[in-house]
């Protein structure tokens, strides 16, 4: 299945895909270089990775039209690995990342994305945008005023050039920005840092390269924590981006195939001397905006990127870093969800806390996986808390028979069990207590234990306790929702709500 694709996915939109692929390739070059610098490796590592990942996902990815390459989210995770152990451990970690992602694909872990709520996704992209922006700051501190002027000018070109009639919408403005700033720097002989100062650029096509690391348990101990983090973050960003592309194009994608595709792409990147990567939100949006829809757009982007870099390496090394900074600031502005700031006012507090907490944890730890973990955890706790409000107990006293009847309604689980226990009046002296559970749902052992305790307490006070409707109430005590997911079963369990 991994290599099957419909003819329409390749040839349904040739013109649009080719043009969009070229636009994306041009935008990928500065990004790949910038992310290599973040990771602390030569620009060629990021460029080879972007080529491999884009080309491989074009064939095996689950989401046609999505752009995958070397990314900031992944680069941030490898910084310490590269610093402490060097490039070859990064390549080994990249291979392992790919293996882990393929396993995730076969285990169908793509479905776990449903636990990642909207606010966590928003927090993720905002945090990513902030990190990309922060990664540019070293280029903007302790520098001459030329750099600030060039960066501001670059941003002005990027955002104002498209307003020029005719050529504005047919030439990618980031390319215009790079060409213009390079020309200015060369003409004025400005002494500012260039891409060539940051490390080696590719001068040949990538070659097969087995990571030069000892195949020992010690190596695995070093790379596994990094690979696990890379695999998680890579899949998270890829699946989020796939959803964004799904929405923009009003089509569907195969999320588990995407997991496997990302894995294969990373293995390919690792074997050709590239770093791990994943889908890119910004570039995928640019691709769709430029009219790219099919697999062809991703293939063109990857292959054109390599051709450009290999044949124009002399020129690319002269690009001033300020031009890259301007492009990266654009990516960060475009990735950030500005609407989420306005929405803070309208959304419920719990949602806002989840979003902001995700951002804070990511910016603090520089690890998107931790942020998502905290976000998902918080969102689940808030949800459990909300559901526990849907529980109440009403009671009626039959003075003649000295009988108190409690009728329990709603969801009883670990979070609402105390509230459930507190609803009974143990001080009341009655002969008999009836607890009617027809309309209650017991979801876990905590709630069942709470019920047992209530019964024991009443008994100790000298009352007879009768429980009715127990079967209906505990039929919700299901661990796996396999045989119970038919409409009539759900009606039986949740009946009355």
């Amino acid at each position, binding site marked *: 299945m991994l290599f099957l694709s419909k003819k*329409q*996915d390749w040839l*349904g*939109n040739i013109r*649009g895909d080719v*043009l*969009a692929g070229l*636009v*994306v390739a*041009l*935008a990928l070059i500065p990004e790949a270089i910038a992310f290599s610098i973040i990771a602390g490796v030569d620009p060629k590592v990021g460029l080879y990775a972007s080529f491999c990942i884009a080309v491989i996902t074009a064939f095996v990815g689950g989401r*046609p039209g999505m752009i995958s390459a070397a990314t900031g989210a992944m680069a941030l995770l490898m910084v310490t690995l590269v610093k402490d152990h060097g490039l070859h451990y990064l390549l080994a970690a990249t291979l392992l990342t790919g293996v882990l992602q393929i396993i995730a694909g076969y285990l169908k872990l793509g479905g776990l994305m449903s636990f990642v709520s909207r606010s966590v996704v928003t927090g993720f992209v905002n945090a990513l945008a902030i990190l990309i922006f922060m990664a540019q700051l070293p280029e903007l501190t302790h520098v001459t005023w030329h750099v600030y002027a060039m960066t501001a000018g670059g941003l002005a070109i*990027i*955002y104002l*050039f*498209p307003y020029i009639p005719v050529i*504005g*919408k*047919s*030439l*990618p*403005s*980031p*390319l215009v920005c790079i060409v213009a700033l390079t020309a200015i720097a060369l003409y004025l002989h400005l002494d500012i840092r260039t891409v060539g100062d940051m490390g080696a650029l590719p001068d040949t096509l990538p070659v097969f390269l087995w990571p030069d690391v000892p195949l020992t348990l010690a190596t695995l101990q070093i790379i596994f924590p990094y690979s696990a983090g890379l695999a998680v973050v890579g899949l998270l960003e890829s699946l989020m981006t796939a959803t*964004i592309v799904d*929405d*923009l*194009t*009003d*089509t569907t994608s195969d999320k588990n195939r995407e997991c496997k595709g990302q894995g294969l792409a990373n293995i390919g990147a690792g074997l050709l001397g590239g770093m791990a990567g994943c889908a890119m*939100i*910004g570039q995928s*949006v*640019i691709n*769709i*905006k*430029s*009219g*790219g*829809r*099919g697999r062809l757009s991703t293939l063109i982007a990857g292959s054109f990127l390599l051709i450009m870099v290999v044949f124009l390496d002399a020129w690319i090394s002269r690009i001033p870093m300020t031009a890259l900074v301007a492009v990266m600031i*654009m*990516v960060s*502005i*475009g*990735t950030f*969800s*500005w*609407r989420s700031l306005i929405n803070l006012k309208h959304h419920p507090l719990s949602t806002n806390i989840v979003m902001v907490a995700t951002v804070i944890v990511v910016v603090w730890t520089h690890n998107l996986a931790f942020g998502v973990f905290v976000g998902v955890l918080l969102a689940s706790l808030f949800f459990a808390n909300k559901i526990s409000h849907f529980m109440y107990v009403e009671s009626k006293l039959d003075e003649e028979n000295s009988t108190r009847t409690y009728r329990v309604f709603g969801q009883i689980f670990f979070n609402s069990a105390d509230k459930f226990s507190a609803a009974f009046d143990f001080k009341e002296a009655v002969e008999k207590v009836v607890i009617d559970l027809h309309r209650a749902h017991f979801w876990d052992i905590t709630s069942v234990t709470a019920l047992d305790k209530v019964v024991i307490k009443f008994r100790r006070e000298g009352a007879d306790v009768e429980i009715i409707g127990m079967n209906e109430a505990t039929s919700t005590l299901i661990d796996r929702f396999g045989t119970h997911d038919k409409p009539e079963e759900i009606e039986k369990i949740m009946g009355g709500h």
Partner: protein
Amino acid sequence: MNTDTNLVLACIDGSSLTEAVCDYAAWIAQRVDAPLKLLHMIDHHHEAAALSDLSGNIGLDTQEHLLEELTAVEQQYGKLRLHQGKQLLQAAKERVIRRGIVEPITNQRHGSLVESLIEIEDSLRVLVIGLRGKVHENQPDKLGAKLESIIRSLHKPVLVVNDAFKAPQRIMIAYDGSKAADKAVEMVATSPLYKGLTCHLVCVGKDESAMKQLLETAASKLTKASGIEVITQILPGKPDQVLCEYQDKHTIDMTVMGAFSHTRIHDLLLGSFTAKMLLNTHKPLLLLR
């Protein structure tokens, strides 16, 4: 979904064969006394971009704006297609009513034709479809874009219409002794559709006694069913050529045969007999899988 069963389903797309498709569907529906449903699909070509802006930058909430923009463009386009489809269906409905169908059902759906047909397969009795749709309308050497996929994925009879309607008098069964061919004989023998028609049972191959035997059995099956006059024939030569020649010579109005009994790979290498028949014949083909 709906609860209709036993439907005669006519797929229309506004191409030149649409009227013939309606006529044949109406003819079948009347003869077998089954409900007639007219289906028009709006296949949004999401794989092609509606707009393209090569400025290559992303700014404040580009993603949201892009979504709004794309939605607006596609909404307009969608409304247009919806409206055109409604008109097509209305015209088709009037046409089949004139042909005596009392209450034709019309249905318009979004999505790909093949997928929707698979979904509603159980409610079908027979599918009527044109040899070519809009895409290949003026290319006589090409089959319809989705025809083979449809025939391969459905397990119901498919009538492929390739010319203006003419009420069939003489039909031909292309018989080769295979399971699909026996099924074809079975169907012709039992369905009220073929009552009173002449049936040519034709086999292409060497004139062997075994073949003759098979042909005789099939013929007797047919004659047992009331009102079908059977003529058997064994002809030498290349099946598709011979059958088409025979068709012309005896003014056959419709051919019944099994379809695509080989895998796609086999057909890719050796060429499909069904595809050749579809391209060469001038009369409608009723295909069985």
